[in-house]
């Protein structure tokens, strides 16, 4: 230690914790000009250590173990005085306590959350695709059923997840599961629907939303709706979740009628699912888009979501007269194209089948549009831009849209869309074209946005609002001049 000014004091009979004293010494060392500070209890060992560090005078007084020694080595007298005063001040000062740090830390993993919520039974996972399998596997390890909203999960991962879940007696809804309604609770993009006896199993979120909200509109209700993810009926996956969901619905006392909505890519898997549905011992309706096999007896095979809802309501003993179509004036001979701009993939697919070559369709919920950005049900800006574009398209005569309500959806999708529609139609009128807008609002009056208010907002700006996606598609065809529509 180089030469400096040494100052020291002794506090008799003052016990302090050694760690607290080291802390005080360190803070006092921060004063400019201070070379070293020692604040220690006066044990022989400590005194010897100070002597060795030249922090204690060789002729200093003897001290007892419960005396506090304060020694400062500084470059000048001022720094020395400041440091000694600082030590006294720090020894006297109560520590600040920060109330924020008293709070528990938030769970960082599903495992940790599970430990805190002992009766948790389901994990809702909506993390970016590359991490979705990690989280879903972790949830299974924690003994939870999984609602996997994330997309971008590899098929092999899906197969592994679902097989593992089956072994554990658990269910993985998804990946890319948009909607489920379990025990009356909507998960993901779900609508607030009446509880009732109709159970739904569906590969697509918007398909389930359309069927369940139409059931509600028709005065009936839903027991449960189980989303399976779009690839569940692929040969590789083998319908693991669909089959389990049918098993659940068969055993569920609240469910009287089952509806299956899917677009099976494997005929073989579809056959197995239909066979399982036929064995449920409950009336069942199947809307399998693109399926060309033989539907077993006792299952009502339908081609559209609306028909599925109507049939299920009828089978449950409700009013199955169906929904009314708006009266429209066909503009025969205009021959313009129908531009279908959809947020819901299954709704888009259904409209495409009903309209055929006359339509050009974009599904803004497809993975290529959602990668790295919110789903169009939440953030409609990308579709809004496409509406404006369609208005400048000389061949387009009808814009066909879905507007999706529900808990996770945009808080006012019709309100956000209305000014865009006004602009689009004005633009078309400017260049001497008549542009029609046909829309269907998926939702109920119990949804936060309110079905009636949303439909009114669209009607107010001249849109033709239809009660189902099927009716909307047929209406668009009619307006575009297809005499055979409907």
């Amino acid at each position, binding site marked *: *230690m180089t030469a400096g000014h040494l100052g020291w004091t002794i506090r008799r009979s003052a016990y302090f*914790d050694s*760690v*607290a004293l*080291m802390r005080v*010494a*360190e803070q006092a060392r921060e004063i400019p000009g201070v070379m*070293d500070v*020692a604040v220690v209890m006066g044990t022989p060992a400590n005194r010897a*250590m100070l002597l060795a560090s030249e*922090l204690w005078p060789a002729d200093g007084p003897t001290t007892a173990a419960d005396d506090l020694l304060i020694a400062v080595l500084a470059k000048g007298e001022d720094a020395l005085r400041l440091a000694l005063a600082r030590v006294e001040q720090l020894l006297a000062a109560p*520590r600040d*306590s*920060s109330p924020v*740090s008293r709070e528990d*830390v*938030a*769970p*960082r*993993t599903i*495992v*940790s*959350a599970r*430990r*805190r*919520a002992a009766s*948790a*039974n*389901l*994990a*809702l*996972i*909506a*993390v*970016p695709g*590359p*991490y979705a399998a*990690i989280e879903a*596997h*972790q*949830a*299974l390890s924690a*003994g939870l*059923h999984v609602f996997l909203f*994330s997309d971008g999960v590899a098929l092999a*991962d899906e197969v592994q997840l679902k097989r*593992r879940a089956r072994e*554990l*007696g*658990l*269910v993985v809804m998804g990946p890319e599961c948009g909607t489920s309604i*379990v*025990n009356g*609770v*909507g*998960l*993901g993009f779900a609508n607030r629907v009446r509880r009732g006896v109709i159970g739904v199993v569906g590969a697509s979120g918007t398909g389930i939303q359309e069927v369940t909200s139409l059931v509600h509109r028709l005065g009936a209700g839903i027991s449960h709706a189980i989303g399976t993810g779009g690839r569940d009926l692929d040969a590789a996956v083998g319908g693991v979740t669909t089959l389990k969901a049918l098993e659940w619905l068969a055993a*569920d006392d609240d469910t009287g009628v089952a509806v299956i909505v899917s677009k099976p890519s494997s005929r073989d898997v579809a056959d197995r699912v239909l066979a399982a549905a036929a064995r449920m011992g409950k009336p069942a309706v199947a809307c399998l888009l693109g399926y060309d096999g033989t539907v077993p007896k006792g299952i009502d095979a339908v081609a559209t979501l609306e028909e599925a809802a109507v049939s299920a309501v009828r089978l449950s003993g409700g009013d199955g007269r169906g929904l009314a179509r708006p009266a429209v004036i066909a503009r025969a001979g205009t021959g313009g194209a129908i531009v279908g701009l959809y947020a819901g993939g299954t709704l888009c697919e259904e409209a495409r089948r009903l309209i055929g070559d006359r339509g050009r369709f974009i599904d803004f919920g497809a993975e290529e549009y959602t990668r790295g950005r919110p789903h169009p049900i939440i953030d409609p800006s990308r579709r809004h831009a496409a509406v404006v574009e369609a208005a400048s398209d000389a061949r387009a005569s009808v814009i066909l849209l879905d507007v999706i309500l529900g808990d*996770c959806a945009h808080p006012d999708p019709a309100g956000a869309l209305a000014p865009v529609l006004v602009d689009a139609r004005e633009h078309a009128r400017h260049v001497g074209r008549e542009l029609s807008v046909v829309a269907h609002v998926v939702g109920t009056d119990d949804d*936060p946005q309110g079905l009636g208010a949303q439909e009114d907002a669209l009607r107010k700006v001249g849109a033709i609002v239809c009660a189902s996606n099927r009716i909307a598609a047929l209406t668009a065809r009619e307006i575009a001049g297809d005499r055979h529509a409907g």
Partner: protein
Amino acid sequence: MLADVLLGAPLNVITAGPDLFRAAVAAQGVAVTPVDWQPPASATGLASLWCDAVDAANRIALERLLAAQPVLVDVRPAIEVVPGMTQDTILHAGPPITWERMSGPLRGAIAGALVYEDLAATREEAEQRAARGAADFDPCHHHAAVGPMAGVTTASMPVFVVENRAAGNRAYATLNEGLGKVLRYGAYAPEVIDRLRWFRDVLGPALGEAVRRLGGIDLRALIGQAVQMGDECHNRNRAASALLIKALAPEIAALDLAARERARILTFTGGNEHFFLNVSMAACKAALDAAHGVPDSTLVTTMARNGTDFGIRVSGLPDQWFSGPAEIPQGLFFPGYGPADANPDIGDSAITETAGLGGFAMGGAPAIVQFVGGTAAEALRYTRLMYEITLAENPAYRIPALDFRGTPTGIDVRLVAQTGILPQINTGMAHREAGIGQIGAGLVRPPRVCFDRALEALAREHRH
């Protein structure tokens, strides 16, 4: 399986993802626990390790860890009890290391140990002997042993013998020398050697006799009590040391020894606040060794440093170390020393954190958090954070300030990789040069790369 009842059961949801999903569930009056989700710190291979085989293996490893019943049963010369010990063996802390890569304090301790064993007359001679390969270096951990700081253990040193009554395995650790100039911090002055010889000739045999007469000392109960008295049994051992001496004192007083020696024994052990540290370490080692070697398990069973490298071992890959460069602890220094003097992290004492004590039990030992200028509330926060990377709570070690919640126990490589939260270790600091000794104490973390490497190896192993 009972898990199969979802329909009809009240829904209770955990969410991981954007808040709107949580809000939508909560708005429907359903119980929901959101995860503060962030992308995993290391994701490669992670999905494959959340599987039934690993879960089952971890349950077994964890059960063995928590069931451990460490009992101090004896004190014996290392050569008599430590497996694989020879006259030429020099055990050291941390993962394997060659003389060339050893840091100052480890070299100093080895030199001191060779002089102590009369294998060399001077430090210079000892270093020459060590450098030409005349000593067999091996990690303590390869011999059911642990040692604080340098961890140097040689044939004639007395060691605590701790038996895990649940599994029957034993673990060993040298006697704690106290603070100041001590071998474990790399000091080798004559007073250091003299003290070790007194350990060998008087203290060790006396403690062994006292412990045997007592029929052993239940360390699980003793540690449990000390944790409730403000110890974390790594960097704070005041209560545990006092409890140990309290148990031993009547037997020591009754030994057939000169009164002067009995007084010296009680003065030395009673005056050493860290006397229990080595016992705590052996207790933790005995518990963790029982959990080591369960195929597929991702449980961390060792964290140890040799002053150059920080190494961890996992239960499922028992023969491998996953190492990275040891870091310099953050903390407080004794008068006359500063960060420039500090050696990188050293010692097997992180075995305590591995077993759910030390930094993991900091919430019960708030005095320790002051090493980094923290408050009592922050001490609790350190402990709470460790629950995020552990699989269980140890029912034997409970923290009053957390409503007697068990300490976070059983570090899972998967959870460390997922959260990026690294184990919190309380530690002493050695001077980087041989011969000086302890210069402070503080907090340190393992380098993340240890866990990344372990994760990679586990995932690779799992694919086969």
